[in-house]
């Protein structure tokens, strides 16, 4: 009874209401957060784990970076090394930020280094526990085979798994570190009595994590390369990693240097600016030359399917995104002139986007059939051209064009296959309406005064569009191009429907390559490594897109 009233008092006071609100909030977010954790965050760690193993349906040996080396050759070592360098750069930026923050507030936050280290250690310990517990927990399913399943049995096996001799020490370290960091963090908070204590602690924890990751990755690279050399030495071959390593690193560093110099060089016709521009150009040339010189070696040592998939994806992106955006913008500008019935046009243009891609792909498949009587081939005959094989045609469009003109086109200039062209057309057809609708919204945000005053000043319609409307639309263009590029790298469903053996894999984009490795060849570990490479490419592209377009985006 007494206890109950005590509880009641906790929840009715002023701070009590706050506690109640916090508990309610956690209850509200719990289901979604747990699901997103299990199926959206945990899988990233799990995929990394799988990618470091030989894994064909069942888990095999731990093979370090072998899957990545199989995919992209020695480039894998270079990438890991640069990830380490990036961590260190991140650490440097964080330190600068923390110093600036301390100086601005005239504080000495150095005491929070202590809990920062402990929190970083806790995070590492948690990760270590996660990776030691994962195989034990996965093995429960095998232990249960043939037994009567019950909750008690599962809990018992789970307990055994978590108490295994590889798991328990990791768990203990984690708990001790966690308690220690809580105590130390609390003490620091108590003594220092500063609003920003938690912020400083978090920053220091991040700094130490970045430091650990940087040093760890760099050390790991060198250890792995030495191991590769040792293995090669036994079989009497030369893996040639170091020369490749050095020239790629030098190339990348020169490119970054060129970028930095170009940005720093004073604008205008000063002598120093001219000199810096020349220097930047030289760095760019040498860097690019070093990197281009390495490409054949990398391609030769990596997986052929992967490079082929990457090439197809690039064709797909380049063939889709610019056209889709241009047509969408053009239609949006026309529709924006308040023509009667513009709403109906908008509704109709949007239909391809909402149509299930699988069904519309099935329709396109028949329209672009290789039958002479299929609509597109009929149209070609109407224009007096030869009917084509379309989705069954692995030859490139430039090759086909050359053949009809009697020119022999070299293999490297073949271009996307005709089969891929059908997929590109279908993709443009699907997304033009979506781009139109979004561009229309963007046009609606441009103030009429601005275009009107330009017209009063004597600008013609093209000039108004070129110098006012188009620049003001740049955030929309940036957003749409990012979505579209990432979309082409992720595309799966329609390409899977369009896929035909006769196209000899010329329509298999990177996503398809991954799925085939996983679904048909059952190489789970290798497919996971490929998925991470795709992830890396998407991050890299978003970054480049942000750097090149983002700086020019005009957020009126």
């Amino acid at each position: 009874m007494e206890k109950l009233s005590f509880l009641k008092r906790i929840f009715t006071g002023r701070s009590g209401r706050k506690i109640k609100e916090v508990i309610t909030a956690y209850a509200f977010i719990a289901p979604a957060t747990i699901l997103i954790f299990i199926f959206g965050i945990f899988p990233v760690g799990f995929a990394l784990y799988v990618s470091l193993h030989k894994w064909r349906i069942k888990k095999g040996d731990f093979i370090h970076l072998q899957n990545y080396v199989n995919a992209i050759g020695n480039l894998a070592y270079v990438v890991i090394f640069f990830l380490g360098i990036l961590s260190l750069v991140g650490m440097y930026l964080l330190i600068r930020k923390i110093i600036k923050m301390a100086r601005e507030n005239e504080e000495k936050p150095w005491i929070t280094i202590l809990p920062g280290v402990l929190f970083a250690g806790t995070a590492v310990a948690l990760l270590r526990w996660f990776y030691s517990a994962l195989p034990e927990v996965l093995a429960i399913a095998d232990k249960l085979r043939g037994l009567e399943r019950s909750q008690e049995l599962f809990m018992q096996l789970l307990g055994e798994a978590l108490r295994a001799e590889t798991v328990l020490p990791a768990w203990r370290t984690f708990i001790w570190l966690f308690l220690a960091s809580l105590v130390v963090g609390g003490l620091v908070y108590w003594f220092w009595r500063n609003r920003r204590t938690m912020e400083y602690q978090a920053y220091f924890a991040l700094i130490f994590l970045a430091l650990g990751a940087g040093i760890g990755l760099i050390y790991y690279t060198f250890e792995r390369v030495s191991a590769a050399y040792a293995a090669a030495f036994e079989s009497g071959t030369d893996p040639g990693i170091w020369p490749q390593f050095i020239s790629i690193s030098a190339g990348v560093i020169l490119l970054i240097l060129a970028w930095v110099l170009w940005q720093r060089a004073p604008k205008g016709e000063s002598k120093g600016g001219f000199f810096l521009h020349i220097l930047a150009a030289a760095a760019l040339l040498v860097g690019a030359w070093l990197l281009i010189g390495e490409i054949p070696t990398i391609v030769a040592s990596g997986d052929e399917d992967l490079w082929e998939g990457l090439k197809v994806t690039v064709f797909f992106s380049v063939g889709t995104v610019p056209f889709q955006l241009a047509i969408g913008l053009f239609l949006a500008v026309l529709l924006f002139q308040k023509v009667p019935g513009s709403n109906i046009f908008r509704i109709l243009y949007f239909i391809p986007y909402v149509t299930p891609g699988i069904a519309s792909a099935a329709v396109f498949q028949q329209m672009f059939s290789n039958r002479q009587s299929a609509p597109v081939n009929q149209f070609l005959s109407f224009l007096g051209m030869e009917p084509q094989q379309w989705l069954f045609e692995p030859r490139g469009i430039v090759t086909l064009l050359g053949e009809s003109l009697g020119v022999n086109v070299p293999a490297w200039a073949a271009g996307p296959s005709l089969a891929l062209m059908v997929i590109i057309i279908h993709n443009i057809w699907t997304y033009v309406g979506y781009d139109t609708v979004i561009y229309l919204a963007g046009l609606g945000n441009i103030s009429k005064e601005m275009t009107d005053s330009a017209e009063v000043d004597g600008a013609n319609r093209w000039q108004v569009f070129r110098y006012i409307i188009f620049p003001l639309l740049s955030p929309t263009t940036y957003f749409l191009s990012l979505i579209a590029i990432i979309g082409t790298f992720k595309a799966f469903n329609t390409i899977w429907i369009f896929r035909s053996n006769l196209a000899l894999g010329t329509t298999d984009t990177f996503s398809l390559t991954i799925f085939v490795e996983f679904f048909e060849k059952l190489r789970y570990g290798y497919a996971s490594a490929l998925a991470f490479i795709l992830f890396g490419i998407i991050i890299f592209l978003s970054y480049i897109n942000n750097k090149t377009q983002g700086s020019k985006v005009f957020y009126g």
Partner: protein
Amino acid sequence: MAENETRKNALKFSTQRNIFTYTILLIGVFISLVPFVWMISTSLMNLGEALGTAFFPSEFHFENYAEAWRRADFTEYFVNSILITLITLVGQLTFSILAAYAFARMEFPGRDLIFSIMLSTMFIPAMVFTIPNFLTVTWLGRIGPIRWINNWPSLTIPFMGSIFSIFMLKQFFGQVPDELYDAAQMDGAGHLRFLVQVVLPLSKAPLMVILVLSFIGTWNALAWPMLVTNTPDWRPISVGLMSFVTEAGQEINLTMAGAFITILPILIIYFFTQKQFTESIARSGLKG
């Protein structure tokens, strides 16, 4: 006089311009819709006509639809797809509404951190998740009381936590004025009642969009259902259509009928919701 002349010229000019604009716009409509027209007209032909050069059927063979429906076993796939969609939607909407409300209107430690960690998963390509999630789902089915592979849990539960829905609803819930909450609190309503009785009725538009987008997403899903089903028991319509297209091969009048059957539900939903739909896409698209 002179003024009248220029106005006339302007009118003439604008008529010319309008003709040009309409021509282009109509070409756009033609290209957007011609695949649908061709699909419907082919689906009504007999096989000989479908493989020939005719664009319109000489007589309408509506029995193609019955034939395609029977051959492709669409009844089972339709029921499966509708069940999968319903279960996913109920779970996803409930969980997303609750979470979005808490993220938008409540104070709790770690709110921004948790939200930004979840948001960052939006940029990870699905292929990274597919393999580990397949292993997880298999594992869950082997240890738990219910089957996951070839059963509804694997097709619905992983999609119930949707950061996209939470993000979209959060944007909207945040715009509900605070005065409304203060008034509700005066009347003794807690968060849950405020959410159900005040916020939700105000958010019909974004809820409709999430509903339609999730519906399309579930209707369209291919890679994941292919992985986690190997019998028709729980296979959705997308996989059903794909196998029918392969199986029916050259009988394109039947495959076109099948494609139209698959598209129709989505088209109906789109036409009923198109106003909210295009507007919300435009709004959320720009913010996303």
